């Protein structure tokens, strides 16, 4: 593991600030092309096209949400069919209690599909982005705190295979960084 030397001197990585979203975009392309893997850009809003600049693929959260929706539909139909038709046939105004009751089950099925899909979205999102995580080395950096205001930051972690303390710092300067700060653990 190439992390041992940076771990012992407590270096998490570098935070570099860029002036505009365009500068950050171009810098991200350079970092992607240089072969770094443990890095990220931190912005106050999602920058359009940044996924492409970082070489990231689309998010598969949609599959999780679909699974949640299917589970919701299935649960609702099973619940209603089992209770209204099978367990204790609930005759209301002589309406049928058999397969033909299913149209009456539509509203609850629809709502429960959406509800479970929404739960899948929330919990899927939290799992995919690995939050909550209230403690992170980046919170030690005063420069990093500006990401939520108006700063465009690029972070390269020391545990990346291509990370070399001085070269990476000068590389960041070359691609247009203004302030570069070291982040310690």
């Amino acid at each position, binding site marked *: 593991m190439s992390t041992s030397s940076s771990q012992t001197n407590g270096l998490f990585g570098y935070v570099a600030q860029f002036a505009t979203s365009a500068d950050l975009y171009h810098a991200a392309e350079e970092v992607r092309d240089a072969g770094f893997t443990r890095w990220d850009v931190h912005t106050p809003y999602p920058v359009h096209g940044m996924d492409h600049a970082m070489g990231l693929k*689309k998010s598969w959260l949609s599959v999780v949400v679909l699974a949640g929706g299917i589970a919701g539909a299935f649960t609702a139909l099973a619940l209603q069919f089992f209770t209204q038709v099978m367990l204790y046939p609930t005759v209301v105004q002589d309406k049928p209690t058999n397969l033909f009751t299913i149209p009456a089950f539509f509203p609850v099925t629809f709502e429960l599909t959406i509800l479970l899909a929404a739960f899948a979205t929330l919990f899927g999102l939290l799992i995919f982005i690995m939050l909550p995580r209230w403690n992170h080395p980046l919170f030690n950096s005063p420069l990093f705190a500006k990401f939520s205001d108006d700063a465009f930051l690029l972070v390269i972690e020391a545990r990346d295979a291509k990370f070399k303390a001085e070269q990476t710092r000068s590389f960041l300067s070359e691609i247009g960084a203004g302030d570069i700060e070291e982040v310690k653990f």
Partner: protein
Amino acid sequence: MAETTTTPTAVHPSEAPGVAREQLVLNNRSMSWVSNRICGIVENRQPFIWWVLFVPSVFLFSCLIFTLVYLVSTGVGVWGTNQPVSWGWAIVNFVFWIGIGHAGTLISAILFLTRQKWRTSVNRASEAMTLIAVICAGIFPGFHVGRFWMVWFLAPVPNANAIWQNFKSPLLWDVFAVSTSFIVSVIFWYIGLIPDLATLRDRAKKKLGKMLYGFFALGWRGGNRQWRHYEMAYLLLAALSTPLVLSVHSVVSFDFATSVVPGWHTTIFPPYFVAGAVFGGFAMVLTLMLPVRKLYGLEDLITAKHVDNMAKIILLTGTIVGYAYIMELFISYYAGNQFETDAFHMRILSGPYTWAYYCMFFCNVIAPQVFWFHWCRHNLWVVFLVVNIVNVGMWFERFVIIPTTLARDFLPGQWGYYSPSWVEKLMFLGTFGLFLMLFLLFIRFLPVIAMSEVKGVLPESDPHFPAWRKLREKRRLAASSAK
């Protein structure tokens, strides 16, 4: 990016003459201005008027608690409901508040899917309004059952007699629809809040602020690896909430449409209710946003264009509602069902509540027509007056639908009259107190505008924007030197 391969006449859409849109944020405000202005509302002292509104709203909320306790301890007889009018102000208020809740979800979801960037200034507050309105609404079905301690019978578990609920009943569909709408709105609102809570966390000076905002921000770091899942989640929730907007109020309308009472038993109800809900909801959004933008200096974020767009939506949905009223009247005349014809004849001419019908018609159909005129949409006093008239009109619409119809159903021997008791009146006022109180608390503690979203629609947020500026400058220089 494309320095030399574009044609000489290509111009970025944001700058083409005649096509260029009005700025979403005026006066070229920067991102840090946005953060400072909105976080400043939370971090600085509230204006005096906040207290002037908060104290009475807490008082009204306590009146609500009092009336609820009085109702449960004494009995439903304290209300004015009777036979035949067994649903009075309580259900009118329920539908009123639920309807208001729909604008928030529409702004968050449908305006997102239709790429209406102007929604970013109003979506946070309108979604908060939705949540608070649904809370106010939920009080009424819960307490109108009479034996409130048995209201858990509505949950999908066997009740005290080991009997399951009747899932074929619209009253139960309502339980699922409203609960789902509330929970999904909370989830959508909260996910939208996470980046803004991170902003407040990073600015917080006091320990308690840091802890609370930090806790609820979940450690958000704004990394693009997080943003891409976040954007997918946001898109999916918008896609899920869109059918929710359309279905929830349709299910509420089924409470009436699936009955056999003339005036209720009609298929026009679902689209009519949904249009009415959007109509009333946008009116309430403007009722809240016009004072807020003035008091907190947010005119550069909630601009005249935003008010203009919302006024147009109010005009559109109000006209749809007017069409529905006229169509109801026409069908009652044309359809050949004597009971339907008589029901509407009594509604507009010979019944005991005709005053309510004309009030409703004027407030909902006539009043918003002023929004055809540019001057009216841009004069904020006119807008504020008209949206409050619409709020009143939408309450009257539900009043005309519910007690008026029940008072005159099939058998003349059954006919009755309903007037609300003081308990119902105070309870309704009390829900306004609850609504205002919770909204003021929202303004006090949470960012009233979605900062990260507004920053995302500023011109400088687009990474290709500066390139166009330079390119255009270069071309202009090249063209002038070639002359």
